[in-house]
């Protein structure tokens, strides 16, 4: 199904996704959307892993496993992050990233 699509295309997609994630991380105010941006970054990395695995070492599985591990970690990270965000909401009455600057004091 992917015959004929060159590796470069996958890399372009993943790069675009990566920088969209970074941009979202920088400019979104809402902590949830920032979290979503992180997921974008992680998934762009996953695409890279899978694409390289498929094109460079088709008879091996390391890339797949890395991708699976990243997905697992991302799930754990999301649960922790959401727990933190809920606590922030209770503490500050909102989930704007700018509100949360108490640690500097």
């Amino acid at each position: 199904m992917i015959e004929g699509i060159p590796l470069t295309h996958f890399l372009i997609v993943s790069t675009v996704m990566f920088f969209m994630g970074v941009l979202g991380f920088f400019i979104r105010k809402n902590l949830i959307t920032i979290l979503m941006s992180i997921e974008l970054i992680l998934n762009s990395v996953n695409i890279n892993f899978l694409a390289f695995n498929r094109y460079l070492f088709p008879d091996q599985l390391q890339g797949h496993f890395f991708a699976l591990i990243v997905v697992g970690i991302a799930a754990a990270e999301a649960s922790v992050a959401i727990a933190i965000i809920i606590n922030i909401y209770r503490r500050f009455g909102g989930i704007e990233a700018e509100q949360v600057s108490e640690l500097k004091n």
Partner: protein
Amino acid sequence: MNHFSYTIWIPLIPMFMFLILGLGGEKFKPVVSGILGTIGMGVSFFLSLLTAWLYFFSQGLGHTHQTIIAFNNVWLNFTDKLHIDLGVLLDPISVMMLVVITTVSLMVHIYSLGYMKGDTGFQRFYAFLSLFSFSMLGLVVATNIFQMYIFWELVGVSSFLLIGFYYTKPSAVAASKKAFIVTRFADLGFLIGILIISYYNKTFDFSVLTEPNSPAFTTMHATSFMGMSAITWAMLLIFMGGAGKSAMFPLHIWLPDAMEGPTPVSALIHAATMVVAGVYLVARMFPIFYFHAPTALEAVAWVGGFTSIFAAIIACTQFDIKRILAFSTLSQIGYMMLALGVSGYGGEDGLGYMASMFHLFTHAMFKALLFLGAGSIIHAVHSNLMTKMGSLRKYMPWTHITFLAACLAISGIPPFAGFFSKDEILVAAYHHNKVMWLIEYVTAGLTAFYMFRLYFVVFWGKNTEYEHAPHESPATMTIPLVFLGLGSVFAGLIPFSEFVSSDGVPFETVSNPLIAIPSVIIGLAGIIVAWILYKKESEMPKKVIAWMRGSYTTIYHKFYIDEIYIFVTKRIIFNGISQSIAWFDRHIVDGTMTGIGTLIERTSNNIKGLQSGQLQQYAMYFAAGTIALALAFIYLFV
């Protein structure tokens, strides 16, 4: 271990007393702490007497007195050879010192029960007295020179504490600092001397250090530095320590000021015990002085001789009775030093050594008595100045009689104690060097004069009107006076050469009438001059002063030695050396440090805005940093 091992308790009991009294502090009633301290000292006193009895008499007289190590404990172990021990060494001079120290200390303890009554800090006073007694006893029984040095510093500290006992009085504080700094300065020399001599001998132990045949001394002779051999340097430096503690010229300036302390302290520390530590040190190292450093020994003799006449001259012009006694102490210690300096080694030749120790012994008795008597007078009159005293014989019979006995003893009138010991010193000096003999002979006359000047002015002289009629001191004060008075009268009759001699072998002394009779005559002459001038209030002393003019003022100002010191320290050392060093310290050393501080402070002020607490800003910096690094790696390092 041997049957003398109990002697360790002689210094330990005062130490425990110090701990108990020092820690208990105000929790004890004053009288309780006084009596506790006195009992502790009493036990030490009886142990010392017992030791003296066993040491000198258990074998019968006529034997050579052996050196006994009664107790020894390796305290700091550096290597197999190099270790610092603490122990008890018994030989004739240390046993004699034990007796002297505990006797005077016990008398002072009893006396202070009356003298210090009602003073604030009574408990503290007794704690310090115990500390001092402990340190002094530890000093004399030291088995090695380093133990001696440790206790040497401890007596310095307790002297400092006791001089500054009235710490609300600025002059007392200044005096205590002066005493401490001057003696500390001298102790620097002592320490260097110890290090030199121990470096060559590879040990601190007296049994090796005082063995003249030790091969290390040959090496020390061969090594020379600035024209003198290492051994001469070492002994001179050790003597410098002794001179500081014994207040020899030119390090004597602290002793007269030390009279700011309570009078019992002056009696104990600055007359009878601590100030003779220097004499004791020279006596302890005597074989080395004699066999290996005769130059240093000659220096000891001259310094002692000069100090004795120098201090005696000053004493004739002073008005503060305690200061007169202080200068008299200087003078008498000068005698002891001189006697050591002129002594030979072994048997009859060691006469000077024996005389020095004998004089130390008798001097402790009569000088402690003089100080305690002066304390009794001050207690009654509430003043130190003898111009405010007169006719006290009517009010204070006991003080008068005992003071007179002490004056006769120090003036060398037979059969009082001072006559015998001073006579031996004069004989020894005569055999060694006629000039020294002449100096000491003149000093003997001066001594008689200034002591009887003091005596006549205070006890006879004018009929002074007192605001409160003076009265005799309480029994706690007169009993020690009487006890020491008996000592001053009879101590001279002890056949001292049977007990103490330079090599431990007893010998006989014979009095030489050619020396003894002139010395008695000059003593009597001094007394008669004092009688004529001061028995009744008259104009004669003023005429004498007018006749002496400038020289009187010079002497009255103690030859301006203090002023010279002030000039040298404040003008030359402070201005010339200290200030440039202080400038360097303040501007260069401190400046560097402040500079670093300021730099860091400024930098952090500038970058503190970076810590905004904004998560996304941080992320931006992080990303920018990553990109910058990536670019750097790509374009700079590839």
